[in-house]
């Protein structure tokens, strides 16, 4: 491979930073050097990140050769070890089972659960196989846990998914309203752009809404530490004040929106006194936030999981958009409702229909014209694309419980850590007749519940596209060969499709050919990328959509905002106000469960640590899980810094050492989400969380659950004893357990 830097995109968060990768030790164009490893630097030419990288991006290459799954492996039951087999044997076993399920239970008993780690090409082939050829919409992804409320909110308020803003708006706004997002730690490079602008321009205001005083809140001009679940009260209360104070953009509302009257009538009841009490904040702070919004010329709202991961997630998104419509703060530089995406290609997944309610090209499975368009495009008979929404992530779990799911294919994600109510998830996975785990790494927590492991090529080992939060499509180029027998995900799907008899639908030999077909389904859709190809992206660099065929190639990046003409993607071209009524958290505190537990990311780690856990620098930054408790709560519990507590919800329990802080509201506790069973004993945040979901987006309320917290007596002594006993007593063999029943 050449030592010229290879341009790609960071495979972690949705900021989508451009990276350049070259062999470590090699100088540019120094062909004599043999690569011993890979070094990564920011791509200065990438419009989104402008050369910046965070610790995750800078160290990503350190994990690419650690704990890789190198060959297919199979086993008959979960208590057996995996045996390595050939691809032929593994795929024969898989397709034989799929054919059996098709014959006995039908296509709706087959489910695939993917993730925003997949490239657009991987996503597209999977959609064509499941939703097209097999005729089931049972493809869901971890975007269900991440962005589905944003998708549903945009669709209902603006007529279509798609964040209308650009990162350039971070440097043009004079009021950034950040709600339910700790961007300083979770989207560092986008935040960096905002923070630089904020520091340089004293008139720029930042408001952060978060029950925790995160790093983002620390940097803000105003921190509203609202009670968990009271977001809609706050947003309606701000709308009330904006209307009362005359900040209504009447011309915009009249020309470009609908349903203003019921919205205005609804927010009339949200007086500052009522709202401040519900949210647990001062009236003056509420008024200041509303005043800054009203006075600003360009208000940019930013949100992430704190809004989306909620049983009212869609309404929360719509309540944010209401404020933008009310004040005309959309479709102009520096303003708009901007969701910060979680995964690097969650946006690409949405574009290509990677949720069980979507079809490629921002189409919906419930719309007959959309189904017909895809059937025609794919050359399938009318009616092949199912008219019913498929199984969401949680409904897959329920289907495993009832036996309705006969085969589960997990791709590039780790649901045995990331889904809520883990004990129930693990019990359901243990019942699965056949689970395929297609991943780059091994072991993972989900592999423990798999029957077939398929080794996947990962970042840097395959070329494909990803779309970031600001709709910029980047060609992520391979810079090395996949190790062992690993293959790109799309190739594996094509191989299975051919074995199932659908070979004629999958003539692809390269990812570029897959992409060339995909772009055609976006023609005349909001996310039109018919003007893009792998060659175009290689030649012209990252490009923002829409980019229809015939768009002039630009020599420099010019940001494109959506809705600049006030025309929205609704049938009448008008954006919709929403009446947003809230009942708060799905699981509020009770006497028995008096604390609200929230959870989130840490700066260095990514999701379930499959990569970052294997990088020493990051492990040193965040070596172990912990629980943040307010000092007053800790005093009441009788625990001090470093003491261990047991946290119990109605579903499970976990143990953590205490970190004392004043940065979290009394009655609220925080644990990081990253530690699964492979990385710590009994420290799984999702052992505690519940699956109650937003009825519109079906996104679970991962962000809050009611728990009880109790000091763990003699915890350190117990742990020491356990560690001492491990070598002597924790293995068994026939000679020492001859009198015991076999497990």
């Amino acid at each position: 491979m050449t030592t010229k830097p290879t341009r790609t995109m960071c495979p972690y968060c949705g900021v989508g930073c451009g990276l350049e990768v070259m062999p470590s030790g090699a100088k540019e164009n120094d062909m004599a050097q043999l690569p011993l490893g890979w070094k990564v630097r920011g791509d200065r030419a990438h419009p989104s990140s402008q050369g910046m990288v965070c610790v995750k991006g800078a160290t990503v290459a350190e994990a690419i050769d650690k704990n890789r799954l190198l060959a297919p492996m199979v086993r008959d039951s979960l208590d057996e070890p995996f045996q390595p087999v050939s691809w032929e044997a593994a795929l024969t076993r898989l397709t034989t089972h799929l054919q059996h399920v098709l014959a006995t239970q039908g296509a709706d008993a087959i489910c695939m659960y993917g993730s925003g780690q997949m490239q657009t090409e991987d996503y597209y082939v999977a959609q064509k196989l499941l939703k097209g050829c097999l005729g089931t919409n049972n493809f869901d992804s971890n975007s269900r846990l991440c962005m589905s409320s944003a998708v549903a909110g945009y669709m209902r308020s603006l007529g279509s998914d798609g964040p209308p803003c650009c990162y350039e708006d971070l440097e043009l706004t004079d009021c950034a309203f950040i709600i339910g997002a700790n961007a300083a730690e979770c989207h560092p490079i986008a935040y960096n752009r905002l923070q630089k602008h904020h520091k340089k321009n004293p008139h720029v205001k930042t408001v952060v809404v978060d029950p925790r005083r995160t790093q983002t809140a620390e940097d803000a001009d105003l921190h509203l530490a609202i009670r968990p679940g009271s977001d809609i009260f706050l947003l309606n209360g701000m709308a009330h004040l904006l209307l009362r104070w005359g900040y209504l953009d009447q011309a915009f509302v009249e020309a470009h929106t609908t349903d203003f009257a019921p919205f205005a009538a609804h927010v009339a009841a949200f007086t500052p006194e009522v709202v401040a009490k519900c949210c647990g904040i001062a009236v003056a702070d509420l008024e200041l936030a509303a005043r800054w919004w009203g006075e600003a010329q360009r208000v940019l709202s930013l949100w992430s999981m704190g809004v989306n991961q909620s049983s009212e997630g869609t309404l929360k998104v719509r309540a944010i958009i209401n404020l933008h419509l009310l004040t005309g703060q959309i479709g102009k530089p520096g303003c708009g409702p901007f969701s910060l995406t979680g995964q690097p290609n969650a946006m690409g997944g949405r574009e290509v229909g990677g949720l069980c309610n979507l079809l490629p090209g921002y189409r919906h499975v419930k719309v007959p014209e959309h189904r017909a368009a895809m059937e025609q495009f794919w050359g399938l008979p009318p009616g092949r694309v199912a008219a019913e929404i498929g199984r969401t992530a949680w409904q897959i779990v329920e289907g495993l419980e009832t036996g309705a799911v006969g085969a589960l294919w997990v791709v590039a994600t780790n649901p045995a850590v990331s889904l809520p109510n883990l004990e129930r998830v693990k019990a359901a996975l243990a019942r699965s007749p056949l689970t395929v785990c297609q991943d780059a790494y091994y072991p993972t927590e989900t592999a423990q519940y798999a029957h077939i492991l398929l080794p996947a090529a990962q970042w840097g080992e395959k070329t494909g596209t990803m779309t970031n939060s600001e709709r910029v499509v980047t060609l992520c180029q391979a810079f090395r060969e996949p190790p062992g027998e690993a293959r790109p995900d799309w190739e594996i799907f094509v191989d299975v499709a051919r074995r199932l008899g659908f070979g004629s639908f999958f003539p692809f030999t390269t990812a570029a050919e897959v992409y060339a077909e995909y772009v055609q389904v976006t023609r005349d859709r909001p996310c039109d990328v018919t003007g893009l190809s792998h060659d175009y992206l290689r030649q012209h660099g990252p490009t923002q959509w829409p980019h229809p065929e015939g768009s002039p190639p630009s020599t420099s990046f010019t940001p494109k905002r959506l809705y600049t003409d006030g025309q929205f993607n609704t049938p009448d071209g008008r954006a919709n106000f929403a009446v947003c009524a809230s009942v708060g958290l799905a699981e509020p505190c009770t006497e028995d469960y008096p604390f609200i537990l929230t959870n989130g990311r840490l700066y260095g780690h990514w999701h379930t640590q499959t990569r970052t856990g294997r990088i020493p620098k990051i492990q040193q930054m965040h070596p172990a899980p912990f629980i943040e408790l307010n000092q007053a709560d800790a005093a009441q519990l009788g625990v001090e810094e470093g003491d261990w507590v047991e946290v119990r919800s109605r579903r499970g329990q976990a143990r953590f050492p205490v970190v004392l802080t004043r940065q979290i509201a009394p009655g609220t506790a925080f644990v990081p989400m990253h530690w699964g069973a492979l990385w710590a004993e009994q420290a799984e945040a999702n052992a505690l969380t519940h699956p109650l979901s937003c009825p519109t987006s079906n996104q679970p309320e991962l962000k809050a659950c009611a728990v009880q917290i109790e000091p763990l007596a003699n915890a350190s002594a117990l742990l020491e004893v356990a560690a001492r006993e491990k070598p002597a007593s924790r293995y068994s063999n026939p000679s020492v357990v001859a009198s015991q029943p076999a497990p």
Partner: protein
Amino acid sequence: MVAAMFSQLPPNFPDRILCYYINSTTQTQRACITSIPNWVFERIVFPHQRLLFEALPDALLEIHGLSGLHETLLTQIPCLQLQVHEGQPWQRELGRQSEALIRTDWIEE
């Protein structure tokens, strides 16, 4: 690391024994044998998972606990202690499934 796991015991070792190990902990482990020249055996053993394997009588099975970045050598077990003797009570209780497993191992050899 996982690359090594594809090695089967070469056929030029006639003095082989069949061994059994179960991970009865709640921690994922890596089991490996590195004490036989020119041969490495390696398996990930999930909690409560059973492992049947062939080794030489003087081999040592190393059990490593996987916790995060760190691997801890938990124990080294002489494979002779793990040897399966036909007719042992535990083996009868394993029933037909384990017998099938044993056969599979032999066939793959």
